[in-house]
């Protein structure tokens, strides 16, 4: 299945390892991602103002392009997903906004005909989890993986329809299909504090800490996410946490496709582990999922 692919700003810069692992793994699942030409930043947050539609111009442009390409649009970053899907919802349900945007941009009216999919949704649509099971040559046996959904994938559920907002399962399905153990921890759907950390690191401490501790309590080896900002907040917080709480053992945060690459038996050097904030390789090695000689 062919899709247009919207990487978003971060995957093209800071988190190239995420982007690379997506590219390697998706092709193995018959998900052909072709990067949208001339895509531009989605704006990172969905504009919540009813009196201004300026913030929708950029995501509308990308959606419109994907439609011109005749494909659905796949994205991975939770923020991009939230913005693009909500914009798509708005333009398919609100003729006025649609008209305003297309007139302003002088393009054909686009009414949400293309679908916006998260990579996980694209997998689900293409029997991806069964395929993962088939193609896993390095099952992640005994690896306890805590899926961190965060907020932007799940809410508002009425518009995103990604999964059950209180009791989601898609990440668990993904984890189980690689042979790993999905760790059910209650804080997987809570917010990490997001952009608030730019001004007051101290104030998001409570939010991030409770997520980490909740995962630690359930003996998670690894936390996976699809959001670079969650990744950042969760990783950064641990630097403090190990100092204040000597019992706390750091939990590596990985992008979910990195683990998939590992399960697919892709050379460890190409999984991008070296650029993770907290090195996952020791724990992976302890579970015999990577060999000692590799890159360590």
């Amino acid at each position, binding site marked *: 299945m062919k899709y247009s692919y919207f990487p978003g700003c971060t995957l093209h810069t800071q988190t190239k390892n995420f982007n690379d692992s997506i590219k390697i793994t998706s092709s193995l699942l018959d998900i052909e991602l072709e990067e949208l030409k001339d895509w531009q930043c989605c704006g990172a947050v969905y504009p919540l103002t009813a009196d201004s539609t300026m913030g929708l111009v950029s995501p509308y442009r990308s959606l419109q392009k994907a439609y011109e390409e005749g494909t659905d649009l796949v994205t991975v970053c939770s923020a991009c997903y939230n913005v693009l899907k909500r914009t798509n919802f708005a333009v398919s349900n609100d003729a006025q906004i649609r008209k305003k945007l297309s007139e302003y941009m002088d393009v054909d009216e686009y009414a949400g005909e293309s679908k916006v999919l998260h990579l996980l949704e694209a997998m689900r649509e293409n029997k991806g989890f069964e395929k993962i099971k088939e193609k896993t040559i390095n099952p992640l046996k005994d690896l306890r993986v805590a899926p961190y959904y965060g907020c932007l994938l799940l809410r508002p559920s009425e518009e995103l329809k990604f999964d059950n907002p*209180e009791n989601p399962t898609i990440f668990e399905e993904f984890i189980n299909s690689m042979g790993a153990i999905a760790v059910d921890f209650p804080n997987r759907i809570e917010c990490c504090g997001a952009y608030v950390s730019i001004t007051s690191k101290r104030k998001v401490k409570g939010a991030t800490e409770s997520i980490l501790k*909740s995962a630690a*309590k359930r003996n998670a080896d690894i936390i996976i996410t699809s959001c670079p900002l969650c990744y950042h907040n969760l990783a950064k917080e641990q630097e403090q946490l190990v100092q204040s709480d000597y019992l706390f053992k750091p939990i590596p945060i990985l992008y979910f496709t990195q683990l998939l690459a590992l399960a697919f038996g892709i050379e460890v050097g190409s999984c991008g582990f070296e650029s993770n904030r907290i090195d996952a390789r020791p724990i992976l090695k302890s579970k015999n999922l990577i060999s000692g000689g590799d890159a360590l």
Partner: protein
Amino acid sequence: MKKIGVFVCWCGLNISSTVDVEKASEELKNYPGVFYADDYKYLCSDPGQELIKKTIVDNKLEGIVVAACSPNMHESTFRAAAEAAGLNPYRVEITNIREQASWVHSNKEDATAKAIQLIKSTVEKVKKSEDLFPQQIPLTKKVLVIGGGISGMTVALEVAEAGYPVILVEKEPQIGGNMAKLSETFPTLDCASCILTPKTAEVGRHSNITLMTNSEVIESTGYFGNFTVKVKRKPTFVDWKKCIGCMLCQEKCPKKTNSDFEHGMGKRKAISVAFPQAIPYRPIISEKECIYFKTGKCKICVKVCPVDCIEFEQEEKIIEENIGAIVVASGYDLLPKEELGEYGQGKYADVIDGMQFERIASASGPTEGVIKRPSDGKIPKSIVFIQCAGSRDNQKGRPYCSKICCMYTAKHAMLYKHQVHDGEATIFYMDIRAGGKGYEEFVQRAIEDDHVLYLRGRVARVYEEDGRLVVLGVDTLSGEQVRIEADLVVLATAVIPSIGAKALGQTLKVGTDTYGFFNEAHPKLKPVESMTKGVFLAGCAQAPRDIPETVSQATGAAAKVITMFSKNHLVSDPQVAKVNEKICVGCLLCKPICPYKAIEPEIVEVRVGCRAEKRQVATINKGLCQGCGACSVACRSGAMNLSGFSNEQILEELKSLCL
């Protein structure tokens, strides 16, 4: 032209001070069709009425107009007087020259002119009037009560005591409904079965009550006073007539399964009776669980039965009954926990609903009244009660208040505290709605004497951590976020109409609201009648309510039935719709418009030229029609009309007023 008499009333000075009544009667004397006209001081007085009667008889009048006060005041008075004088009462029309002329206008000239014009137009209306006769409708004096809970039983007992036969249909194998599952009742804390059991027993033995449990109403035809219903009697696989209720079968049955009656809190056998005081005290085999039905082997019940009453080959039966009135008392269910994602969506064993708590608090329940939590049977040290779980919640599609939860939650907390003195009972509430005799005092007792902690606010999430439930809530009075670790969480889930209520409504042709509660005919004045004549409502089928209110309403519904049955036949108002079959084209556009479902198609034979032809036309059920006239407007061919307010009458009135 008809001989019409016109009577103009002075109403003392009320009319005469602003309307020149003498001028009016004088002018009407010369109006075409008017044979007699006069004015009188007080027409509604006895001499006034005598004058009218005498004038009708003396002058052989064929219609009269009384120009006086509002027809809402004395229309029936004057119509009765006319009837006494041998004139059909529907030949009498009132002109309202008091409320619509003398009292609202101050210029005598204008008021008089208007009054005269109004009287003239009424004369025109009377010219087009017809003799109308109330119709007698036969009546079957037998009532069908649907639902064997406290409301259905109350209706059944009241009507049966009045001497009329009752058929009580209940879908469960036993009567008692939800009340039979309750532990104790607020605000008195008397045990529910103690007050219910005498009632169920009485229903069981009353000679005027035919009990049909394990049965459902599947069809209803006919109308007001003359319904025919079909009742499906599901198989019990036990011959209840032969059975002596020794329950050896239940004792020996090897198959255990979850009990619906216990709401998952307890077990039952594949052949069982729901609870020890059940009426009828007869077992039923659950086809789904019975080993014999699954494998063809076992039959232990057959072996132990001393009277040989097990019948595996029993089949469902359809019974047809003629009845005169129906009372819907189909009760309620609770919103499934599975619809509450934030409270665990049903995946935590120790997050239970109010009814489940009733079972574990009930002395006859699975724990014999010892409050133990379902997951491990431990006595909870901390219980959190969450009110408005799904109620008052637009997002969950239930914006209404479930009404009973405030009180039963206070009761739950109290029962718990009486058992576990050092236990913590916390209630999250939004408002405490304790309007009822002794209710507020009851809640205060829970707070003051039993130290139940009331937190004002909702709960955002419930999840499990280290074998305990974590409740994330807020106390808006202090403004604090609250995190409580609890051993048991009790959700006061929304009261919803019993499953199948909507379908029952369709079967009975009775409307339900958005949520599936039955619609009453009028929110204030007809709270126990449905929009379908002859069908009455009682209890939670109509809206959430507690036991005392249910009993009151059920008694009211019973009174309605008894009033209806106190006559030998029913009389219908003749001012109803009528069809001119000659011009009706049978399109039935009128049918969906009728709020009373009084219009049905009928095949009639009509003469077209010299031959007879069969044709579909609309026909009015005069027992159901209430005379609103909406159909007459929808009719394209003008075949539909309304007696008493016919097209011709209104048009004549109109023409006369437009001059």
